[in-house]
């Protein structure tokens, strides 16, 4: 899968590497900024450090 992506990228190895790193950074940004906060709202147990309900 990742090997196929590597082959699909144009240019010499260092250009491919740069593109890969850029893609990785973009994916991480989307995850940290939107996906993880959204998941946290779903899987979080709602515990707030409070007593009572």
């Amino acid at each position, binding site marked *: *899968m990742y090997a196929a992506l590597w082959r699909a990228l144009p240019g010499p190895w260092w250009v491919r590497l740069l593109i890969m790193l850029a893609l990785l950074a973009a994916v991480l940004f989307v995850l940290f900024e939107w996906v993880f906060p959204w998941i946290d709202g779903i899987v979080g147990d709602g515990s*707030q450090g409070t*007593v*009572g309900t």
Partner: protein
Amino acid sequence: MSRTEAENGKPPKPRRRVSLLGVFGELLITAAVLVLLFIGWQNVFNSWVLNGQQNGAAQDLGRQWLEQSGGQTSAATGGDDGSAGQTSVGPAANLPVEKEPSNGQPIAVMYVPRFGTDWKRTVREGTGLDVLNSSTAGVGHYASTGMPGAVGNFAVAAHDTGYGSTFLHMQNLRIGDKIYVQTKDGFYTYAFRNYEYVQPTQVSVLAPVPNATDAKASDRIITLTTCNPPYHTVERLISYGVLESFSKTPPKAIAGELAQ
């Protein structure tokens, strides 16, 4: 495959086939990495980011309130020991007590040197996630419990881990440790008294006299609640403190945090 290679008559390199099993394996590895990333985001990254934001918001509010009340630091009042205008607190002491605001409104700025010399948080009304997860709060005041300085119980809650990890170091408190609570009126100094480990359902810790729901309050208590053990939510760790003094000017230990 370059032109020269083709002209040399070499056989073309065989293309590696993408095997179904290989893709499945890579997907599993990717999923595992994503789960680890999420845990890291939750407990390290997001907590670290929010800790900074909540600290900064508390500092801004504290300085703003101090400025509005005359902008005096203890050094400027002429008090040599930084305790000018300090009121010791007996049962009959007449202290300023604010009215309880509506949900989400700021009540106080809290300073606990034991949690870190620069540790501070805005206390806002209500204990919902809108307050506890907020980048401008972190500590929530239990609705209809006492306000700072009032006879009774000023009860607040915060996360131990995640979203700023506000009360992560609560178990480090030692008897007599100061808990400074700044309002628009001045600075209330509470001293840590004791811990209690309770079930999450034990709401009597919020009573005006904690756990004595029928008793008439005469002391001015602060109650901090958080989850216990850290990273788990099966119990609650409760810390109690007693009001020691009130002053218009910042106590020495936190004056540096309020200097412009």
